[in-house]
């Protein structure tokens, strides 16, 4: 009898604290941070999985997991509520001999070897939960098989002047990797790692077990596993991804990625019926745009009541902009109210906030101001900066 198994299992690293997102990740894991009006960051890799035909996903969480667990639920919004496979949230847990947190990206998968083995896959794809991009992983998997690769790393062509900010892959003419350099001062190539790896599971498993035995290892894919594979002359290939990709690990990049949605020149197409981004839905009515509203170059999601002005902004589900309020160049996260006469410029406003009447958030100088979740900016207050004390 044939064994019931999966060809490829996706392992999504969602345990990072995202400390560079400051107040936005104080009580929320980075992958659960709202994005693009109705999504959360994790919707992108999860929807990519579904759109690539991957139906078995393990999500490794450890930092402030409550909201993320709640958001994922049984995976139904992504069609990942399967009786065999589907989505599984994998927090670190106490074992009979010891209990520990996830020490590094490789250790997180090491601690879940049993989970992967349940599906006895040929391949494992390792993803991270903090990038905005649309990618068909099945094409990368085809490439991996075609090259007979042991490990394939997705890379992006970046401008030479930015290459020293990334992990850079130095390639042979056939696309194989001969060297990996983390943030090189003098980059030899412009192929930057996107943090997406496909491994032959048996090889990865062997390396994870060995890596765990090495007390001096930091148990990290980029720092330990990849260099070790290269050192042992395993076959590593780079898969060139062409398209939009953005790391949203900082306030500036999170803001920029939101603004990119409004730019017709930038190819992050949320509206593609053949490659939808799925998200949990909150049963809100359609938005009401009043006679006095002014909307210019903006996204407005459902459940909003707009009576004021929004320009170059992303207004999320369930927000209200009252009469005379002006929102410009900003991201308003779900269920926030901007009261009469208030103005918001170059800012990210968290979920469930109230900007009271005639208050002002942000400045004109393009430095992004941030208000954390559940905050009230008092009437008439003038605030700006990334660490607003309220």
């Amino acid at each position, binding site marked *: 009898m044939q064994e019931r198994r999966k060809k490829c299992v996706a392992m999504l690293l969602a345990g990072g604290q995202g400390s560079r997102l400051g107040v936005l990740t104080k009580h929320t894991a980075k992958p659960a941070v709202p994005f693009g009006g109705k999504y959360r960051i994790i919707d992108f890799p999860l929807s990519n999985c579904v759109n690539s035909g991957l139906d078995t996903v393990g999500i490794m969480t450890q930092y402030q997991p409550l909201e993320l667990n709640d958001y994922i639920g049984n995976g139904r919004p992504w069609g990942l509520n399967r009786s065999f496979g589907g989505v599984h949230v994998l927090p670190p847990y106490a074992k009979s001999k010891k209990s520990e947190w996830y020490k590094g990206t490789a250790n997180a998968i090491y601690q879940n070897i049993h989970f992967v083995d349940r599906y006895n896959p040929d391949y494992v794809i390792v993803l991270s939960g903090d990038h905005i991009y649309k990618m068909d992983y099945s094409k990368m998997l085809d490439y991996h098989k075609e090259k007979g690769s042991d490990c394939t790393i997705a890379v992006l062509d970046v401008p030479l002047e930015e290459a020293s900010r990334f992990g850079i892959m130095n390639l042979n003419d056939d696309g194989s990797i001969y060297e990996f350099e983390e943030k090189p001062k003098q980059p030899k190539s412009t192929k930057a790692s996107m943090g997406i790896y496909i491994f032959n599971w048996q090889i990865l498993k062997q390396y994870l077990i060995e890596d765990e035995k090495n007390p001096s290892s930091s148990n990290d894919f980029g720092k330990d596993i990849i260099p070790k594979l290269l050192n042992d002359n395993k076959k590593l290939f780079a898969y060139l991804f062409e398209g939009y990709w953005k790391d949203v690990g900082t306030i500036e990049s999170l803001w920029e990625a939101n603004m990119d949605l409004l730019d017709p020149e930038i190819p992050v197409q949320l509206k593609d019926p053949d490659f939808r981004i799925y998200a949990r839905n909150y049963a809100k009515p359609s938005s009401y*745009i009043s006679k006095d509203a002014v909307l*210019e170059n903006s996204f407005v999601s459902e459940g909003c009541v707009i009576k004021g002005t929004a320009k170059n902004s992303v207004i999320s589900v369930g927000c209200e902009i009252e009469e005379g309020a002006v929102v410009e160049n900003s991201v308003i996260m779900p269920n926030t109210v901007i009261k009469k006469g208030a103005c918001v410029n170059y800012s990210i406003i968290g979920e469930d906030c109230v900007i009271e009447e005639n208050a002002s958030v942000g400045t004109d100088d393009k430095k992004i101001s941030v208000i954390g979740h559940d905050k009230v900016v008092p009437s008439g207050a003038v605030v700006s900066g990334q660490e607003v004390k309220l």
Partner: protein
Amino acid sequence: MNSIGIIFSNIYDVAMGELTKRRTVASMPFGGRYRFIDFVLSNMANSSLTSVGIITKYNYQSLMDHLGSCSEWDLNRKNSGVYILPPFSTGFTNVYRGNLEALENALSFLNANKEKYVIMCDTTVICNINFEDVIENHKKSGADITVIAAPAQQGEQFTDSDLFVKCAGNKVTDISIGKLIDQSWLVGMGMFVIERKRLIQTIEDYVSRGRFSFERDYLQDEFNLGNLNLNVYKFEKTVLRNHSIKSYFENNFKLMDLTVRDEIFSKGAPIYTKVRDEAPSFYHKDSVIEGCIIADGCTMIGTAKDSIFFRDVHLKKGSLVKNSIVMQGAKIGKGASLEYVIVDKNVIIEDNVALKGSPEIPLIIPKGTIVS
């Protein structure tokens, strides 16, 4: 809760004309992202009903597609949930003539359940009602049947099948069908509470004798004979009755009144619908939007005034839409202009086409039409 729900999906099909040619009245699009049935089904789900039968007759593919497994309403239960009840057809069966006859379809569903009460509803009356309160009220009254009713609005038009009741306190003292005697009478909302066993008995006794209308043949006749004790549950919040294309057209725009919006889309009792995973709507810098309801997934470049836009509508540059309803997936071409038009699903209005209906008789463009 000790009640089950019955929903009639086809009862007022005729009144909606072209719009119900390819759908049940229950699947009529409403308010940008909803179908009629979403409201009554959400009310039932929010009132802790776990077992709901939906009686269908014909054209019910779009309804089944919309409901799916009913997981959006959390009615995809292991031991109960939603049951679609199509006619049991023998090849000689006629389509049913009234709701009692329609209920014959539901006999096995009614017999299979053990709950004490049945809440029966049409889908054309839109409101946000808690049936737990209704059941409590019914129990307290000790009556045989509770009629859910609301005051008539000034100038509201009714059909000859509408039910009106005169009451003293909670007690019904007179019944009229088809005529509102005066403004002190209440208008039935097509919603009733009855004991399950009594309903089964009534269906069996009446249908075999060729009496098929619940309101006229049973409720009114038996009440006039003094055999029924009727309680009325007076519903005081917003009620939107859709018994004609005109009232349907007007009711859509009433959702722009924020009091109506808050009462229908109550925060504590949300209205659920099928999730479509559309992106947020995009408003171009050239767009002019004044007084509109707009769902997700729209691309707005033209001008829109006092109109309703369902999901995934594309309003192209230089177009003008006024006092109209534009349903899912429609494309309005460059320089096109629409006034008092109901544009059904997936219609394409080509560039520079001008269409105009009137407030009394809006122009209906049928599903999937290309207008050039």
